[in-house]
């Protein structure tokens, strides 16, 4: 858990589903993390460069830009490769997909909010 004295850790949430973004925001904010949300992956690289998040939750299934390409690119790029990326997917084979795109971890939909908290704690 983060202390008030040290600057809050930053989590970037990227999902096209507004309600899920909201739930993740509520739960993780409660835990004292600083949250930024994106409803698509179009500006994700710019945002990362500027905001420098400590952890990224990303939905793989988004319109226009495919989430798995974004994750691959994040892990290829030296500037972003160190940031842990957790994929959020409705697929049952989440583990396989996470491996395939070099993501650090995964959460399967529908998830328990406690999983979300545990995941954040694990990587921050």
């Amino acid at each position, binding site marked *: 858990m983060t202390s008030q004295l040290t600057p809050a850790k930053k989590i970037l949430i990227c999902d096209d*589903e507004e309600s*899920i973004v909201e739930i993740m925001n509520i*739960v993780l904010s409660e835990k004292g993390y600083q949250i930024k949300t994106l409803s698509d992956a179009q500006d994700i690289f710019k945002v990362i460069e500027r905001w420098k998040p400590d952890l990224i939750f990303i939905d793989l299934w988004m319109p226009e830009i495919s989430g798995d390409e974004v994750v691959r690119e994040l892990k290829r790029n030296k500037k972003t490769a160190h940031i842990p990326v957790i994929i959020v997917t*409705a697929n049952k*084979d989440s583990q396989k997909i996470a491996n395939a795109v070099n993501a650090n971890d995964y959460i399967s939909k*529908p*998830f*328990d909010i406690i999983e979300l908290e545990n995941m954040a704690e694990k990587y921050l």
Partner: protein
Amino acid sequence: MVKNTSKQFQPSTSFEGDFELLAETLPQLVWVLGPDGSYEYCNKRWFDYLNISKSENTRENWVKAVHPDDREMVTQMWYHSTLTGEPYEAEYRFLNAKTGEYRWFLARARAVKNAEKKVLRWTGTLTDIHEQKTILEAQTFLAEASKVLSSSLNYVETLGQVASLAVPHISDWCSVEFIENDALLQIAVAHKDPAKVKWAKKLAKKRSSDVTSNKSISEVIKTQKSVFIPIISQELIERSARNEEELKLVKSLGFESAMVVPIIIDKKVIGVIQFVSTESKKRFNQFDLYTAEELGRRAAMAIQNAQLFESSRQKEVQFQALYDSNIVGVIYSNAQGKIIDANDAFLQTVGYNREDLEAGKVRWDRITPPEYKKDTAKALSEVLKDGMASPWEKEYIKKDGSQVPVIVGSVLINKKTTEMLSFILDITERKKLEQRKDEFISIASHELKTPLTSIKGYVQILERIVQQMGDEKLDSYIQKTNTYINRLNSLIIDLLDVSKIQSGKLTLDFSKFKVQDLIDEVLEGIQQTNSAYKILQNGKENLIIEADKHRLEQVFTNLLTNAIKYSPRTKKVLLNVERKKDVVQISVQDFGIGISKKEQSKIFDRFYRSDAVSKRFSGLGIGLYISFEIVERHGGKMWVESEIGKGSTFFFTIPVKAKKT
């Protein structure tokens, strides 16, 4: 001149004496006549054969002994010779007065003339040529019959012609009858008189066609051997006639001799050929019987050939129709890769034309992509070994370089030349459909799970707030909501699993784990939501297996929740785990409603719900189907033992060591 037959065996020094001695020793009938045809000398054989005394030895009696059919011919030829003095020679049937049988004779006579060429007397012989004649006749008949039988595949027609050939040389009557469903079917009848044929046909129609009504025929069918009646006695006629009318009829026909021979195909009498002698007074002998039986054999062969030909022709027509219909691609090829022939459907599938095929550009080895070489080689060795290969999926490289998915099935036609016939089904459309289905599953999965995720998330946030408020009533409602969210989630997962199983996309992730760990986890989860039920485990097995843990958890959960669901009145469920050689066997026993024998075989089917259950219990009917498939994919087995009202026990086995396929 010969005067006295009583002196015939006394030695003589005169020419007449020598002649007489010679005439009596000869095996022939010998006669000497005056220029006018009057009797001068006949040997003893002559008198014996005709059974007459010297005083009865008149021209009238000689003519009477000649077969009625031959009389005119004999009279004319003799008349010609006496008129011209030319040698006389004729073949005719001559009645043996002692046996009452006509036998064939060769008659020869020469005129003895004086210096003025005036006929002094005629000397003649009659040589018995009956055996040679009948052999020759039989041979000619059989040769003719074979020719007719092989002339056409219409054996009903050819057998009719054969019957006609038998008349009159073999017998006076000849008929062919087929046996169909124990009934006689007359297919041919012949007699030299057309009026009599007509009458016989009528008789056959009137007569009972039941085979058992004809004693000879039923005997032939039973023994598969001929019935041979060389002499039909009056007594026999009287004995076998069924009524007065029939007796009169048979007597008027003058039955003399009869043979009934079988036509045997595949060790079964399929028909008979009947030969009857009447007005010719011919008595069939062993040789006639042999001829008749031979005809029966040849007829059987002809029928069999015709049937074989017909069935192979039909098959050919059927196959040709399939080949030409172009519903499915067909190729005729060898194991080396050469395609000898192919139909249009195949050429269309691979994008080549007939010229390419004829130019030898289309070889199956060349159009098989490298990644399918191994499978193809395996199928090929299967074909060469077992004669056929069960259909397998592969792809061909089309003329334009693209690849087309197909299903191929092959059968070996010729082992020596390795020539085989293969069916090729273009499954491009099916593959597209499968792909669309996969995409649909993926979309549906996302579309259904996303709102569920939102509901679950909000409810869990709500749960925390309520727990902080300490409102127990609200909290209990939220707990219930959670239960239904989980239920909805497992239904979605099940539906997706069914789709995966259906499209063969259900994959297993093998790992090594303790069976007991898995059981403990499952039991904990189930006991939490069904605290009223007691799940008792019998025998803990400290065994590590290699399997898909998550999938097996599904099976355990399914069986245990079913056991609870279908035991509304009892609260006990028994779980038993034991190792049996290479497998671990698990059983889940309940004491609930039970399953009828009839339904036990159906409960593992997709979407099956028993009538007894569907009204009282909710469900999609896919849980057991998924469990069964998961167990099978592991190389295990699943079955049920149950009794209505007493409960059910579900068993399944999982190999201890993974059988990865």
